[in-house]
C-alpha cells in the first residue's frame, strides 16, 4: 500500500444498537505520524467506531489490528495498554482534584503512597515535551476548558498512548485555543504519535488533517481522501450526500426601529457570582445581532434575564419600550418575545409530552385552542398537524412523544412553536448546536425568514462561521459585558475580543 505502516487497521466493523445499524462493515486505517480526520454528520457513526477502537463498545463483527497484531478490547484500560487513548467530548476529570491526581487516577503504580511532588515533576516534563503547558498542582476547576483538554491529552500520554483519538476537540474552544491545539497536534505527530480527529467541521478538517475518511449513516462514503487537492464543497457532498449551499442567502435590508433594548444589566450566575456586569445591547427590527463569545461568559445568564427566567440585580430590559426586567415570563411571551433555549431537551421541550402538547405550549390559553379553562383537543391537534406539515417535522404522528424526535426535528418543533406566536423579538441560543448540516440549513433559513418579517433576533452561538454568515452585526461578550461591536467579518479581531486578549477592556 504505502511505505508508512498502518498503526491501526479496522476491517468490516459492525455495531448494532437497538433499531440502528451504527456501523455497517466499516474499514478504517491509521498510518504512523498522520492526522486522520473522521468526518461526518452527527449520528453518522464516527464516535461509535472510535468507541469500539477505544474499548468502550464491543463490535458485533469485524477485526482490529494494532501494530499488526489482532486485538480485542474489553475495556478502555485494555485499549490504553495497547497504546490507544481517547479524549472524549465531555471531559472525564474530577474537578476537586489536582492535575497530577487526575493523571494518576486509576493507575496501579504508585501502589499506595502518592508521591505527589515526584509525579508533578514528571507531569510538567511531559507537558513541556509536547507543548501542553499546564500547572500540575492546579485543581481542575481552576482551569480553562482549553487547559482541561490538555490535561486529558496528558492523561493519555502519561499512560504511553501513541494513538490519540480526539472526539470533536474544538467544540469547546475559542479560535485562539483551537489554533494552539492544532499546533500541539502537529508537534505530537512529529514525535511519532498518530492522531484520529473526529469532526463535523469541514474547515478544521481541511486545515489540520492529512487524510480524511468520510462517514454517513454508519458507512464509509469516502476513504483515503487527501486533504491536499480536495475542496470543502467536495467533502461536504461526501458527508451529506448532496450539495450544500455554504453561502446563506442574506438579502440586504435596512433595519427598523430598536425593538429589544438592554441597558447596563447586572445579574449573578447560579453560584452567586456576578455573570453580567453592566451589559448593554440593542437589537433592531429585521436585524440579526450575533452574540459571539466563549461559553460561560454570561450568554446563558443574559438570555435568561431577557426571557424573565433569571432576576437582574440592576439594569433594564425593554421590548418596544416596555419594561420587561424582573417581570413574569408570561408577560414577555405575551408581548412577543420568542425564545429558542440552549437545552432543547429539558428547557425547549418537555420530552415525555406529545408533539401536540409541546407545540401548543404558548397558545393553549388563547382561542381557539383554549376555551376558558378547557382545552379543545381537536383544535390543538389541528394546529399541531398544521405546524408539523409546514415545518416538515418528521414523526409518526402528533401524538408521538417529543423525546423520540431527532435533534433536528426537535429544533424544528421548537422553532415552529416560537414562530407561530408571531414574535417581535427572538432570542436564539445555540440553535444549531449538535445538528447535522441539513438541519442547520433549515434553522438558518427559518431565522433569515424571520429577519425578513421584521423580527429582531439575538443569535447566541459559539460557531463563528454561523454568526458571520447570518448576522448583520456581531457583538462580542466577554466576562459579562459587550467588549466589541463588529460589523465586518474580521475573524481575528473577534477572536481576540472573545478571549479578552485585545486589550480593549
Amino acid at each position: 500500500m504505502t511505505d508508512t505502516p498502518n498503526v491501526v487497521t479496522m476491517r468490516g466493523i459492525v455495531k448494532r444498537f437497538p433499531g440502528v445499524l451504527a456501523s455497517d462493515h466499516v474499514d478504517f486505517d491509521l498510518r504512523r505520524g498522520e492526522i486522520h480526520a473522521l468526518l461526518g454528520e452527527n449520528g453518522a457513526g464516527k464516535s461509535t467506531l472510535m468507541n469500539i477502537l477505544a474499548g468502550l463498545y464491543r463490535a458485533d463483527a469485524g477485526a482490529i489490528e494494532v501494530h499488526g497484531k489482532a486485538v480485542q478490547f474489553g475495556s478502555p484500560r485494555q485499549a490504553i495498554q495497547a497504546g490507544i487513548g481517547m479524549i472524549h467530548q465531555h471531559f472525564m476529570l474530577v474537578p476537586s482534584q489536582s492535575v497530577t491526581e487526575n493523571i494518576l487516577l486509576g493507575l496501579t503504580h504508585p501502589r499506595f503512597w502518592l508521591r505527589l511532588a515526584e509525579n508533578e515533576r514528571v507531569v510538567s516534563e511531559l507537558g513541556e515535551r509536547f507543548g501542553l503547558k499546564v500547572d500540575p498542582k492546579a485543581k481542575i476547576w481552576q482551569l480553562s476548558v482549553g487547559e482541561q483538554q490538555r490535561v486529558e491529552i496528558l492523561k493519555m500520554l502519561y499512560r504511553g498512548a501513541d494513538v490519540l483519538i480526539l472526539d470533536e476537540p474544538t467544540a469547546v474552544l475559542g479560535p485562539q485555543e483551537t489554533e494552539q491545539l492544532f499546533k500541539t497536534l502537529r508537534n505530537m505527530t512529529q514525535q511519532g504519535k498518530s492522531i484520529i480527529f473526529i469532526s463535523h467541521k469541514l474547515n478544521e478538517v481541511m486545515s489540520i488533517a492529512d487524510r480524511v475518511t468520510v462517514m454517513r449513516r454508519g458507512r464509509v462514503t469516502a476513504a483515503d481522501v487527501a486533504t491536499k487537492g480536495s475542496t470543502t464543497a467536495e467533502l461536504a457532498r461526501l458527508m451529506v450526500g448532496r450539495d450544500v449551499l455554504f453561502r446563506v442567502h442574506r438579502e440586504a435590508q435596512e433595519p427598523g426601529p430598536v425593538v429589544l433594548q438592554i441597558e447596563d444589566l447586572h445579574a449573578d450566575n447560579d453560584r452567586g457570582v456576578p455573570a453580567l456586569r453592566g451589559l448593554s445591547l440593542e437589537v433592531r427590527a429585521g436585524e440579526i445581532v450575533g452574540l459571539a463569545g466563549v461559553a460561560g461568559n454570561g450568554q446563558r445568564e443574559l438570555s435568561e434575564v431577557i426571557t424573565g427566567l433569571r432576576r437582574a440585580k440592576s439594569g433594564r430590559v425593554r421590548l418596544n419600550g416596555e419594561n420587561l426586567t424582573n417581570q413574569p415570563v408570561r408577560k414577555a411571551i405575551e408581548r412577543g418575545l420568542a425564545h429558542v433555549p440552549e437545552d432543547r431537551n429539558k428547557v425547549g421541550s418537555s420530552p415525555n409530552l406529545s408533539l401536540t402538547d409541546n407545540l401548543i405550549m404558548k397558545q393553549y390559553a388563547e382561542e381557539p385552542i383554549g376555551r376558558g379553562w378547557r382545552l379543545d383537543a381537536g383544535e390543538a391537534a389541528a394546529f399541531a398537524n398544521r405546524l408539523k406539515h409546514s415545518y416538515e417535522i418528521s414523526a409518526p404522528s402528533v401524538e408521538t412523544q417529543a423525546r423520540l424526535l431527532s435533534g433536528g426535528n426537535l429544533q424544528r418543533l421548537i422553532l415552529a412553536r416560537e414562530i407561530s406566536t408571531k414574535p417581535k423579538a427572538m432570542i436564539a441560543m445555540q440553535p444549531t448546536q449538535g445538528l447535522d448540516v441539513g438541519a442547520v440549513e433549515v434553522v438558518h433559513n427559518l431565522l433569515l425568514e424571520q429577519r425578513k418579517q421584521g423580527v429582531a433576533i439575538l443569535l447566541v452561538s459559539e460557531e463563528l462561521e454561523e454568526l458571520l454568515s447570518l448576522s448583520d452585526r456581531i457583538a462580542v461578550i466577554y466576562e459579562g459585558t459587550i467588549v466589541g461591536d463588529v460589523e465586518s467579518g474580521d475573524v481575528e479581531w473577534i477572536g481576540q475580543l472573545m478571549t479578552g486578549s485585545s486589550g480593549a477592556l
Partner: protein
Amino acid sequence: MDPTIILQAGVASGTVLLFATIGEIFAERAGVLNLGVEGMMLMGAMTAFSVALLTGNAWLGVLAAMLVAGLLSQLHALITIHLQADQVVSGLALTFVGTGLSLVFGEGLSKAGGGALIEPFSIPLLASIPVVGPIFFANQSPLVYLGYLLAPAAWYYVYHTRPGMNLRAVGEYPAAADSMGVNIYRLRYLYVFVGGVLAGLAGATISLAVSPGWFSELTTSGQGWIAVGLVIFAQWNPLRAMFGAYAFGALRRLILDIQGPTVLFGARNPFFYNPYLGFFLQMLPYAFTIIILVLGSREAVRNRLGAPAALGLPYVRGERGR
C-alpha cells in the same frame, strides 16, 4: 462539675461519635449516603454485649459487632448501588431494620446481668502530662486510644494515598474514575462496608466501654443521627470529625453534669430544680444536628463545604459525562 472529668468523659463518649462519623465519611466520600448509622450502631451494641456475655471475651464482642453491622450495611449497598434505589429512603429503612432486629434479638438482654467489659487503663508517662494527661491518657478505654490513631490514619488515607485518591474520585465524578478503569461498584460496596464496620465499632464502644449494658434503643439514643450531622460539620474530613466528635461528647456530658448540683456558681441551680429546663438542655445536641442537616441539604451550602459531588447519586455506566 469538674471540667477535667467532663472533658475526660466527653472524649470517651465522643469516641462513639468519632467511629460512626469516620465510617460515614468513608461511605459518603464514595458517594453513598447511609442514613442507617443509628440502626447499624444498635445492632453493633446489641451484638457486642451479647457475644461478650456468652463468650466472656469483650474483644470477641467488638469483632462480632463490627462484622454484623458491616453485613447489615451491605443490604443498603445492594439496594442503592445495584438496584439504584433512593439512598435516603433505603438508609431510613436500614435504621428501622437495625433498630427492630436489635430489639428482637436483644430481648431480655438488659436483665441478663453484666458480662465481660473492656477495661480502661492509663498510659504511663503520657498520663502524667499536666492538663492533657488526665483528660486524654488517664483511665481511658483502649477503644478511646484506638480513636486517637484512627482519625489521623483515616485523614492520611483519604488525602495522601492512591486508594484514597480513587475513593475521592468515585464520590466526586464516578464517570471519570470509571473511564480510567477504577471499579466504581466494588469500591462503593467496600466503603459502605467500612462505614458499617465502624458504626458497629461505635455501638460496641457504647455497650462494652462508655456506658456498659443494653438499654434497648436508648443505648444509642440517637447518636447515629448526630454522627450523620457531624459528617457535614466536619466537611467530610476525618481530622475535623475528631474535633467535632469530642466537642459533642463533652457537650453531652456537660448537659448531664450541670443538672447534678443544687448550687451552680453560688446560686440556686435552675437545671436541678426545674426538670423541664433539663429536658431542654438534653434536646440541644439533637436540635443542633437537625439544623446542620437542614443547612447541609442546601445545594449552595454543600458546594461551599465541599460535599462529594456525586453523593446520593446512583452510578449507571453509559450515562457518561452529565
